[in-house]
């Protein structure tokens, strides 16, 4: 007998029965089924920093197809609820798949009687379990996620990658951002004596400066981006697209750039 299944007006992989995240399948009898071996359409860095009254996160809107800047208006920042946002770098198909699941979870929470909205810490915990589970089945979701928001009146910032490695910090970055920008963000925090001393304006300009560095130095970065701000006492807001001003006049000094 199949026991009574709950009806769903939206697709969640677990209800679908066939595309489930938690499904085990025999690879021998299912030759068309594949594991993720490499990311295809990718998103670049995500940056985030806490400030005295919340947390800000930025990500550009580029979907790269290898070295081709193919999709120039892809939203990578997801507003989960008033207190939580998340953004991902890595394979954008995997990101969109996971984001659908997250959104459906959030809908579930909202429609359930007396449901409490997903807190950023709960989302971060759940995401870690999902990513680690996929890694352990050698079929990863090829993403690095940053979860940002407010929890019990305090800013929250968490990181999860495709290996299931997860941690929380006052400033975070993925991909190239972790190499080129994390130092800059940490310096901003040190100068302010911690995030409690960092204003929203300073935090925003620090992130913008980092995005500019990335646009100059990361070949897969872009000058159009989204910004998410989650203040402790107010609802989360995702704004964009913002446009980055950059100065390429130094290019003429490059030998052979012009005749």
């Amino acid at each position, binding site marked *: 007998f199949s026991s009574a299944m709950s009806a769903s007006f939206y697709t969640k992989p677990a209800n679908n029965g066939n595309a489930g995240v938690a499904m085990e399948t025999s690879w021998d009898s299912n030759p068309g089924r594949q594991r993720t071996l490499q990311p295809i359409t990718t998103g670049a860095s995500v940056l985030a920093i806490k400030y005295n009254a919340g947390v800000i996160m930025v990500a550009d809107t580029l979907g790269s197809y290898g070295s081709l800047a193919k999709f120039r208006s892809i939203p990578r920042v997801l507003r989960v609820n008033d207190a939580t946002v998340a953004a991902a770098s890595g394979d954008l198909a995997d990101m969109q798949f996971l984001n659908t699941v997250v959104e459906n979870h959030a809908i579930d929470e909202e429609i*359930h009687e007396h449901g*409490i909205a997903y*807190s950023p810490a709960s989302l971060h915990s759940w995401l870690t379990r999902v990513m680690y589970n996929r890694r352990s089945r050698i079929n990863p979701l090829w993403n690095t996620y940053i979860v940002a928001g407010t929890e019990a009146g305090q800013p929250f910032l968490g990181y999860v990658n495709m290996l299931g490695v997860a941690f929380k910090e006052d400033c975070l970055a993925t991909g190239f951002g972790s190499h080129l920008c994390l130092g800059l963000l940490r310096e901003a925090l040190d100068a302010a004596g911690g995030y409690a001393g960092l204003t929203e304006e300073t935090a925003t300009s620090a992130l913008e400066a980092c995005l500019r560095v990335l646009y100059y130095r990361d070949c897969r970065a872009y000058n159009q981006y989204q910004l998410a701000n989650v203040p402790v006492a107010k609802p989360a807001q995702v704004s964009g697209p913002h446009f980055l001003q950059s100065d390429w006049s130094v290019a003429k000094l490059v030998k052979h750039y012009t005749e």
Partner: protein
Amino acid sequence: YDHDVIIFSPQGRIHQIEYAMEAIDSHIGVSIAGLTADGQVLSRFARDECFNHRWAYDSALTVSRLVDNLASKLQVPTQVYGKRPFGVGLLIAGFDIGIGPRVFYQCPSANYYDCKSIAIGARSQSARTYLEGKLDEIAATKTPEELIKHGLIALRNTLPNEMELSVKNCSVALVGSDIDFTVYEDSAVEPYLALIREEPSAGAADDGQPSTQSTSGDGAAGPGSSGAAEGEVRMEEA
């Protein structure tokens, strides 16, 4: 006489139908009336749900979500050929941060009810009547002791004349914002029973003399009934 559910004891009791009160998680507990084996399955399921939620989401499963999941599980054997419903009624009490105290009554039919206060079992109607009349007072209680007093008085109202609440036939559980689900049994119940000794029994047809018979367990209960002395009365922690 406890080998099989169909065997009556000489006292006319069925031992397999009993009461149990247990914690499910630190913030939720249940009181089970009915077939203990079925009750164990549901307790284990409820604990599983709570712990799985904590593992995945690093937070407590809200009482209403747990009850929803329980109800979905109970409904299956009411619709599938060859199965039988779970033979238990449950009172589920818990406290959710950000929501407050919750009390639910889960029936074998899979229906459940969100309650301000509730009493179930044989002769529980007098308890429900008392509770309904005292709803405002109960909502205005400021201390756990005041709340427990109402519960015990309601419970006492269900007793037949010759029976009396004692540490041997009564237990109390408490859960709230500053207390994990805690069960008080045996001698631990005595302080709470002492609170109601001065209160008159409402509606009882006795002369106010406490019964001199001490009963253990379910003395006056008939087979298959949930004796009120061990019936649980659950109330909101105000």
